[in-house]
Structure formats: C-alpha cells, structure tokens
C-alpha cells in the first residue's frame, strides 16, 4: 500500500441543523483513481466544497500532502496542487476556449507566452484544439466538460477532484473522458472522482467510498461495492428486503 496523499479525518459539515456530511473518514493513496459515490443528496459535492475551501468544515480535518488544509482559501488549495472541476460547469463564457485554459496555466507561470504554450498543449490533449478561438460559452455541454478538464490540467495538479465530469454526456463522450482520466493518472496525478453513474465508476476506479445521507456507508474495490447489500439498498431505495 502506497502512502496516502489525501486523508479525510472525521469530517462533518452542518448547515444549521441540517447535517450534510457526518464523521466521514477515508484516505486516498497516491496515484490512484478513487471513486466517491452515493445517491442524490449524499453529501458528495459538499465534501468537495469542504476539501477545497469553499465552505468551512464544522469538525474534523482534511490533510493533503501531510498538511492540514482545513482553513485554506480555495485559491491556496489550488496552489498547493489540489484542483476541482464543477458539477455545473463554470466556463469563463465571454473568453475564448484558449484564454480559459490560459487562466488555469497562469497558476504555474507568470508569462503569457508560457501560459499559451501550456494551454495549447492541454487543449490538444483533451481534443479541443479546433475550438481554441471559439467563445467558451458557445460550446456544447460535452465540450464544456472537456474544457473544464483542460483548464484544471493546465494548473499541473497533484490531485484532481472531478465532480460528475461525465454527467449529462452520451456514451461516446463518457468513454473519451474516462480514457482521458486514465491518461492523466498515468502522468502521475491522483484522481478523486464523484460520479452518479455506477457503470462509469466501477469501470475506472480502483477503490470506492459510498456516502449515503452524509454518512460513509462502505469502502472497497468495485466488486466489493457492487455486491454490498447495503449499497444496493441505498441505491434501490429502502425497505427492499431481499
């Protein structure tokens, strides 16, 4: 077992009386593709928001690369190497596709020339080169998701948090994004992957954590998870006594 790059230690997040995430603990090993799944409202995105500094954690700790990052601002989290994408894509709509990726690349360089070079490279990697000059707002949802990916890759992350990057895509698009994610992992980036679609997750993840109503329900390999009766119950609904 290789060392963990990310440790989530008893993390809870309460919104007033509403408990969105409760006492969740898991660790992600370096260079893994790790899945975070669960039904709607399970607390997956909230957990991402907690990890990346967008909402403060109620209790517990997030340790990234041996450093406690509970109180870091989102931009600082990005600069130490953990970058997220958004479930609802957030393109910089009135900038060109190339400029969008350049904004990402400026996280690692101060020079516009160098940023452009990185951006061109990343656009080629995700297959968006032909769209460089188009306005980001004019792309289809599938291409916007690829743009999100190119933009975060341009920051040279140590770890990527992908929030339903395949949501709303067709089979071909999903397959090509999954292949991209495998390639990125080969380059040494650790991936934490939120996904709704069980098939996508089990086909790509080496280890999976299941959240349900803010609580960790199970953790294991894809085959362990898919045969776990509690997980099946959570996905198919309660009161299913088989």
């Amino acid at each position, binding site marked *: 077992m290789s060392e963990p790059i990310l440790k989530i230690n008893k993390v809870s997040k309460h919104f007033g009386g509403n408990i969105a995430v409760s006492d969740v603990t898991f660790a992600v090993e370096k260079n893994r593709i790790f899945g975070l799944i669960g039904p709607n409202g399970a607390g997956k995105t909230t957990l991402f928001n907690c990890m990346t500094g967008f909402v403060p954690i109620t209790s517990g700790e997030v340790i990234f690369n041996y450093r406690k990052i509970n109180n870091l601002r989102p931009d600082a989290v990005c600069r130490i190497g953990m970058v997220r994408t958004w479930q609802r894509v957030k393109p*910089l*709509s009135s900038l060109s596709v190339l400029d969008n990726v350049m904004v990402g690349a400026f996280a690692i360089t101060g020079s516009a020339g160098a940023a452009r070079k990185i951006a061109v490279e990343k656009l080629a990697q995700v297959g968006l080169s032909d769209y460089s000059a188009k306005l980001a707002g004019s792309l289809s949802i599938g291409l916007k998701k690829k743009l999100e990916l190119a933009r975060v890759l341009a920051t040279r992350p140590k770890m990527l948090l992908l929030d339903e990057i395949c949501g709303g895509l067709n089979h071909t698009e999903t397959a090509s994004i999954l292949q991209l994610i495998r390639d990125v992992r080969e380059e040494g980036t650790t991936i934490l992957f939120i996904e709704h679609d069980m098939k996508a997750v089990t086909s790509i993840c080496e280890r999976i954590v299941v959240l349900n109503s803010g609580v960790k329900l199970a953790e294991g390999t894809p085959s362990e998870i898919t045969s776990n009766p509690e997980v099946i119950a959570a996905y198919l609904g309660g009161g299913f006594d088989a």
Partner: protein
Amino acid sequence: MKQALIIALFALFTALLPLIIGEENPYIIGIMISVLMMAALSSAWNIIGGFAGQFSFGHAAYFGAGAYTTLILISSFELNPLIGAAAGMVVAALIALVTGSIVFGLRGHYFALASIAVAEIIRLSVLNFEFTGGAQGILLANVTLWGLDLNSKNPFYYGMLLLLIVTLTVTEYLRKSKTGYYLQAIREDQDAASSLGINLALYKNRALLISALLTSIAGSLYALYIRFIDTSAVLDLRLSIEIILTAIIGGVGTLWGPVLGALLLVPLAEALRSNMIGDALVKFGLVSETSSVGIFLNENLAHAHVLVYGIITVLCILYLPKGILGLFRRVK
C-alpha cells in the same frame, strides 16, 4: 496593420488638433479637453469595472481626492503642482485600499454599494470641513510650473492626452498579462476563478488601485485647469455615473469603448447644454423661436443632457449590450 495605421493617424490628428484650431478658438479646445478627460476617466474605470467586473459607483472620490489634494497643497503650502498631484495619488490609493480591503472579502453587489457610500462620506466630509473650503470650494488665483503658461488651454490638452495614452497603454498591457486574464476570470465567474488559484481580493484590490491612481491624476489636471473646485464639480455622484455610462455606451471591457463613448457623449452633452441643438432647429427654420415649441426647447433642452444619457443607455442595454464598439465588431 490597418488598425495600427488608423490609430496612428488618429493619434497624429489628436496631437496636432490645437495647432489646427489655434488659440483663437478656446471653446473647441475646451470641449476637446473634456472629451480627453472623460475618455481617460472612463478608461481608468474600465480597468476595475470592465475587466474585473466590479462596478464602482464612486469614482468621483478618486477624482476629487486628486483635485482637492492638489489645490489645497498649492493654496495652503505653495507646493509644486506635481507634488500636489503625487500627494493626490497617495490619498486616492489610501481610499481605494481601505474600501477594497473591507469590501472585496464579500461577493455580489456589496462593492457597488460600498463605493457609493465611501464617495458620499468623502463628499459630505469635504463639504463640512474648513480646510477644504466647505461649500464655497477652493479658488486658486494663479499657478506656475516650469514657466509654462498655465492660463493657456494647450498644456492641459496635452496633459489629458498624455494621461489618456498612459491609461490605454496600462489597459493594453494588463489585458495581455496574467493580471488581465485573472481580472477577466473574476468578472466571468468568481468560484471558477478562485478554484483555479486566483486570490480574488488581491487582484480586485490591484485593479481598483491602478484605476484609482489614474483617476486621481485626471482630478489633479482638472483642478489645475479650472482652478476652481467644489464638491458639486469634482465629488458628485453624477460624475461617477457619467464615467460609467460613457464606458457602457462605448463598450465595457474593451480597450477603445470608453474612448468612443467619450467622443460621442461629451460633445453631445455640450451641444445640449449650450442649446446648440435648439439654436440649429431655429436657424434652419424648423422651429420658430417665438413659437411655444421654440420657447419650450430654449428653456428645457439645456437641462436635457442627463435625460439623453439615460435614453441612450437604455437603448444600448436593450440593443447593443456590448456598446457601440460591439456594433462594429459584429459587422466585422
């Protein structure tokens, strides 16, 4: 290439204009100074309002800081006008940094609201302090700098032109740099921007500071040019709004939009204010001077420029959301 040639010809024409018009036509030069000043002010506002998308409704505060500081230092301490202008920049920078560091921690419309509040606090303070001349304002009888004849308009024409060129150069440099990209990312989506490593408050403060410094220089030049200032001339909310409208009508977030806006709106306002349009209608026999319409126009058209600004703005927002410059871009 073609664009560079047009800009070069335009710059040459602008530089030679006082020689073409000559000293005997101070009225035209005066209007041109107003055009250049509004172009510079609107371009400076564009850095924080257009590129970073943080709408400041209080840029009169920075303009007034430059104007008041310069004239107070000259009239009370007989300091060199340049020292006065430099001190004005320091005051403007302090106002910008205090406002920014308090408000930029928040999202949404807080900055717009706070910028009005800060500008109004400053206006009311200046109106009630003694050393600022209170409601009477400050009148400066004479000012000298390096033997230049500051009673002539030409030095101020070239001063404003230089300020506009500096402002446009800064804008263009920013636009192509990391800071410019970051400001535009902030304008487009703050969550996306911060998740990509952008320190929102730092970059907003930086943009506001640059914008405030340039605005304060315009204020200093204006004060030395007019040599009489009061709060209604340099600290009024109306000035802040005219700066914004000029940028919106010309094309917000573009390099040349604010210049185009100033070129159209300042002469238009002047024509209305001096009743030029009413006079023309009479002159061409369209309206009789003694008819009820003629009397109505004569009495009311002079006050109509704010109304006209308003109508043009509404039309722009409805039909030209990218300003008049956006119209040319679309054709191209």
